[in-house]
């Protein structure tokens, strides 16, 4: 790896290329095909790490590290944050709404890919120089890049600095929400509730006392069914309500079983109650775990 | 370097336009006075140009030349010949009257917001048009001319579309729709012509390597610049098409009746008396000057189209029910005469055509502005809504009649001189065309007199019985125009003096000689 001046690479690198390249392509495909954004992000992160390895293999040590630190470490994490913000579990619908979009996309992609490949094949790139001399000129890859960045590309460098600052400020401006109206007082809120007449008292608190007190656990109604109203709207919208009613009913049933056994009585109606427990969103429940 | 008189003449109205536009909303009247003063100042400058121009001197005088776009050899190059001087004079003469006639045309309506400033805009646009038209008469650089030729569409578009005639039948929405139709039609028609001209301008550059009219013409005359026959013809057609749209020549005329019908009377005058003249002027200067051979080649076809314009325009004028559209069709007929005179390729025809441009401008202004006053009194453009106006408003009727008589080229009024010259000039080369064109003078009498009879004579109608006569401001507009018409009708020498040398140059451009009379030829 130290002397990269030949027209071919070492076998080790070839093996590495074919193995990791395959994985990178799979990662890329997963990025665009998986329905959940968070999965896409993770796959993309994987692809990027593989690319970092390739950079290293190509003698771009500085870039390889930057790729991992900046791209995978910072940018992808930023993605994940946003995914979290807008809903980590929301999956895209697979149904295409624009007529012919997929066909056109596929056709264009195919044509484009073939043309690119043809272009590369067409170009005469049979031999290459390797980075040995270039890296050695200033005593290393990092030094070489530094020399370039602070001499030849210094203006571009300064401008990118300005760009970054601007972007940071821009992001703040975009996401910062100025309160445009006066916050309503409690009294006003109360009056509004009275006016609307839908729900006068404060909403019930979540959690099942003495058993679960997390905010994502709906309180139980007297009949043991969960009351969605007790969970905050964000979680409700995301469908991230943990339902412990089954557990509670199972406990109840066990209790009754025990008392049955003790008392020797047969209670049919208990079974009825259990049947009413909705067995909905089993996978959702799993996802939330 | 001498004083840039030509630039200043065009710059004064341009600066005036900006200043007028900047007048605050509340100071409406100040804007009007400012516009009037600026237009009068321009008139003075035009008079200076007229005085400084020496008929016996060089072809182009008072020239200015500065590099503009070096890479393409585009220069800011100005100069006037006699034809340009005459038309600059016409433009500068008419604008003050147009401003004065349109004094109240753009007053804001009650319903409009107080911050809205239509008056300022109206007068600023008029001055803007004036500046561009004057500069286009001065430009001797093809590219500069092209830019102005196109740019003047913009203010005209807003003048037509934004300030319609308040006298209309039907609802306001309907009128607004028609107005916008007229404005868009005007714009698209002229843009189409302009685009084709742009192609020809580029083509000319490719062939000639620069845009200077004088240089190209000189190179052509020396034989340094050879154009293939077909190239020259295509380029000629490209230029001619744009000018024929602007002029307008049958069958490219249909935008004019719409535009003139929907615009206010002063704007209609601006269209037909001033802006359209750029088209005929450019035919003389650019078509004949740059492409003499192709001009000769196309002459028969153009003469036929011009003849159709003359007769067709006159017949349609007879058939109109709307006063302003009638004048528009009459103008189409007159433009036919102008174009016929230009392409007759005789001294009489071309001098006549040049005089015709000036005279038609003044006579149409007189007729149209009086018609505008009439329309503003009754609030209708339909001829059938009038009758017996003469009894209530004799001065209005009298001036209207004089405008009409000028339109039908009565001897003693200016248009006669030019029309007769065009006829004689055409007849000398194309006798049949000359004879057919004379039917135009009968038809002109028909549409003018029918119009006069239906509006002014007969028993007075209820609405016209108490029609007020011309007011002082209106009289100030009309009287000088009529005076000029009579003056140029009996003593056109000041004009012919400057025009004749220019025509001589044009005739030598196209290498044509007047046909000599039969008797002399026999000897």
């Amino acid at each position: 790896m130290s002397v990269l001046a030949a027209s071919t690479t070492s076998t080790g690198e070839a093996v590495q290329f074919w193995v990791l390249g395959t994985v990178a392509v799979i990662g890329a495909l997963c990025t665009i095909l998986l329905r959940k954004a968070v999965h896409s992000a993770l796959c993309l992160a994987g692809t990027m790490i593989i690319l970092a390895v390739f950079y290293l293999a190509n003698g771009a040590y500085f870039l390889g590290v930057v790729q991992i630190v900046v791209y995978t470490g910072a940018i992808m994490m930023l993605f994940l944050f946003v995914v979290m913000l807008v809903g980590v579990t929301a999956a895209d619908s697979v149904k295409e709404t624009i007529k012919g979009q997929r066909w056109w996309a596929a056709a264009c992609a195919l044509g484009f890919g073939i043309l690119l490949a043809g272009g590369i094949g067409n170009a005469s790139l049979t031999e290459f120089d390797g980075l040995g001399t270039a890296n050695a000129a200033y005593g290393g890859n990092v030094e070489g890049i530094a020399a370039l960045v602070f001499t030849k590309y210094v203006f571009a460098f300064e401008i990118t600095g300005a760009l970054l600052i601007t972007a940071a400020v821009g992001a703040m401006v975009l996401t910062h929400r100025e309160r445009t109206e006066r916050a309503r007082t409690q009294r006003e809120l109360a009056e509004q509730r009275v006016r609307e007449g839908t729900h006068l008292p404060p909403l019930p608190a979540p959690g099942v006392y003495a058993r679960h007190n997390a905010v994502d656990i709906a309180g139980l109604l007297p009949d043991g069914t969960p009351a969605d109203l007790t969970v905050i709207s964000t979680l409700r919208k995301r469908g991230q309500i943990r339902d412990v009613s089954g557990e509670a009913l199972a406990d109840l049933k066990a209790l009754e079983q025990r008392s049955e056994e003790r008392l020797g009585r047969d209670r049919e109606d208990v079974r009825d109650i259990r049947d009413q427990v909705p067995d909905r969103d089993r996978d959702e429940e799993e996802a939330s775990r | 370097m001498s004083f840039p008189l030509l630039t200043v003449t065009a710059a004064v109205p341009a600066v005036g336009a900006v200043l007028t536009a900047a007048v605050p909303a509340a100071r409406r009247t100040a804007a009007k006075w400012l516009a009037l003063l600026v237009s009068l100042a321009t008139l003075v400058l035009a008079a200076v140009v007229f005085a400084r121009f020496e008929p016996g001197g060089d072809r182009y005088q008072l020239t200015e030349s500065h590099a503009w776009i070096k890479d393409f050899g585009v220069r800011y190059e100005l100069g006037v010949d006699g034809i340009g001087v005459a038309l600059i004079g016409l433009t500068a003469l008419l604008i003050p009257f147009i401003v004065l006639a349109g004094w109240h045309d753009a007053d804001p309506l009650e319903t409009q917001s107080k911050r809205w400033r239509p008056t300022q805009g109206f007068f600023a646009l008029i001055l803007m048009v004036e500046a561009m038209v004057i500069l286009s008469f001065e430009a001797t650089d093809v590219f500069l001319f092209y830019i102005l030729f196109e740019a003047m569409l913009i203010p005209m578009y807003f003048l037509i579309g934004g300030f319609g005639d308040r006298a209309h039948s039907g609802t306001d929405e309907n009128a607004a729709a028609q107005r916008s139709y007229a404005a868009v039609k005007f714009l698209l028609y002229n843009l189409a012509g302009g685009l084709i001209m742009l192609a020809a301008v580029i083509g000319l550059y490719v062939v000639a390597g620069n845009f200077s009219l004088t240089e190209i013409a000189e190179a052509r005359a020396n034989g340094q610049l050879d154009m293939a026959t077909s190239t020259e013809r295509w380029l000629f057609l490209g230029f001619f098409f744009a000018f024929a749209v602007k002029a307008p020549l049958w069958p490219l005329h249909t935008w004019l009746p719409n535009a003139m019908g929907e615009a206010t009377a002063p704007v209609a005058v601006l269209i037909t008396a001033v802006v359209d003249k750029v088209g005929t002027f450019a035919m003389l200067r650019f078509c004949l000057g740059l492409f003499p051979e192709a001009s000769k080649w196309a002459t028969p076809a153009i003469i036929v189209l011009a003849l159709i314009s003359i007769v067709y325009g006159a017949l349609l004028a007879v058939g109109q029910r709307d006063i302003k559209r009638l004048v528009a069709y009459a103008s189409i007929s007159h433009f036919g005469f102008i174009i016929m005179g230009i392409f007759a390729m005789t001294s009489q025809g071309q001098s006549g055509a040049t005089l015709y441009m000036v005279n038609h401008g003044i006579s149409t202004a007189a007729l149209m502005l009086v018609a505008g006053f009439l329309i503003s009194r009754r609030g209708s453009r339909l001829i059938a809504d009038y009758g017996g106006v003469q009894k209530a408003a004799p001065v209005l009727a009298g001036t209207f009649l004089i405008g009409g008589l000028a339109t039908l080229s009565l001897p003693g009024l200016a248009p006669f001189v030019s029309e007769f010259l065009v006829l004689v000039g055409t007849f000398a080369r194309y006798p049949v065309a000359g004879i057919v064109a004379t039917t135009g003078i009968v038809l002109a009498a028909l549409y003018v007199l029918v119009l006069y009879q239906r509006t002014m004579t007969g028993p007075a109608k209820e609405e016209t019985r108490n029609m007020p006569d011309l007011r002082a401001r209106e009289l100030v507009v009309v009287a000088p125009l009529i005076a000029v018409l009579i003056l140029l009708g009996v003593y056109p020498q000041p004009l012919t003096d400057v025009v004749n040398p220019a025509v001589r140059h044009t005739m030598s451009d196209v290498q044509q000689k007047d046909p000599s009379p039969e008797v002399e030829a026999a000897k």
Partner: protein
Amino acid sequence: MDNLIALLVAAPLLGAAVLLTGGRRLDKAGHWLGTLLAAVSFVIGLVLFADMLGKSADDRTLHQTLYTWIPVEGFQADIAFQLDQLSMTFVLLITGVGTLIHVYSIGYMEHDERRRRFFGYLNLFVAAMLLLVLADNYLLLYFGWEGVGLASYLLIGFWQHKPSAATAAKKAFLVNRVGDMGLSIAIMLMFTTFGTFAFGPVLDAAAGGDASEGKLTAVALMLLLAACGKSAQVPLQSWLGDAMEGPTPVSALIHAATMVTAGVYLIVRSADIFNAAPDAQLVVTVVGAVTLLFGAIVGCAKDDIKKALAGSTMSQIGYMVLAAGLGPIGYAFAIMHLVTHGFFKAGLFLGAGSVMHGMNDEVDMRKYGGLRKYMPVTFVTFGLGYLAIIGFPGLSGFFSKDKIIEAAFAKGGTEGWILGACALLGAAITAYYMTRVMIMTFFGEKRWQPAPDPDKAASVEPGADAHPGELPHPHESPKSMTLPMILLAVGSVGAGAFFEYAGFVEWLEPVTGFEHGHSPLSAAAVTTATVVVMLLGVGVAYLQYGRRPVPAVAPRGSLLTRAARRDLLQDDFNHVVFVRGGTHLTRSLVYVDHSLVDGVVNGTAASVGGLSGRLRKLQNGYARSYAVSMFGGTAVLIAATLLMRAV
């Protein structure tokens, strides 16, 4: 002396300018100013005449050049005047009769609130007419020609509030324009043939035989067309009858004495051209002969006194044109008849005006009768005019008309016989219809006792003092009206004999040339024949109208009578062919313009719009959809690049 010529024109022109722009403050004195300036012109004319008489016959032509009117390369038109014997005759006729009629109008238009304007128009007419006869080139003549047309238009339509007057004015102008077309084509032909259109060079060249006969015939025919328009000759005669809508003085001055004779002037002025174009001359004589019969027949059938006189005018001008077409044997007589006709026809019209003045502006002769007792002066002057026009021996019409008939026979050949016969027949019919007018108006029993028909009264000329609905009180007109009538009557009586014995023909000879015709009939025979047919006509008319009461309502009459009442169907023909045809033509052209020419444009716009509407659907707003197009576009670009490299 030369410089006075311009003053001739300038005086009335000044009057017109002052009166028409002066405003109401001139209302009181305007008519005096107008009359004065016409008189000034007349006096200048007399001075010039006296001067001219003092010179030798060949030296009498005066020229005055003011300035160059239209100087253009190869084309020069001057404002220049030429006063020779022919022009002089016209100048005296125009200013003389003109002044008389100004005077007459003072009384006639007394109660018209627009009298000032009327005098302005009259002055304008006099100026234009003088310009016409004084011009030294055809273009300036054209100026005057159109000027009189304008004045005629304004004066016929003077009572604009009457739709009939406005229509008549428009018709007159339009028909004249058709003639003007002829004049302008003639000028253009002259310009291309001779390179000029000044009288001197053109006529010399024509006389010198420089130009081909074909060209000259064309010029002559075009001049004839012009003359037909202005002089109301067939086929352009239709406007004259309608022109009687104008005030009566106008009919007398313009549509009898002066303007309508301009055509004759034009032909005589262009004598050299016509002499060199015999074919054209023949056409001229035919037009003259046809018109003289046409006008006479129409005159027989009209009950409207002015229209009967208009028919007569047409007929008499027909005589003049006939004479002018005969060439040098007739030119002088044409002018002589023109002048005598100017006197007696103006007198007749003024008489008619006077009658109408007294009869509540009634124009229907069937509602007159027995007026001689009430209007003695009018009766006598009208009667003298009547005797003059029918050619009563010794009066002016006798001398001039007799000469024309004689010259017609002298044309020679079959043509001569036919033309002579036509002229004789015309004389008979003239005697007939004029006697009819005379009897119906001044003799017989009164037919006006019952109040005039209200419908009729409302539609008649609301001239000087119209009191529609009241009974007429026939009375003699004021002095200002009778004085001109008396003077004109004197002229009607004496002018012929004066000209005959004072040498009118010799006076004109330097301008028009003169040859003695060789008539197949002796002069005495022609005179006898003329007198006989005249007496015949009078006799028939007397038998028909004098011996029997005149029905107050016109009988249906024969087919010819009915046709003659409608101007021998000329108007109907014009209406069907030109008016209706023209209306259809313009309407269909309007349709064509809207749907075809504009249709192509709007159709293009619509199809572009439709295409855009369809393309617009691609613009669905989905960013991804746009991305596909961008992606596809990139692919195409790459393909193009690769292909370019491959090539």
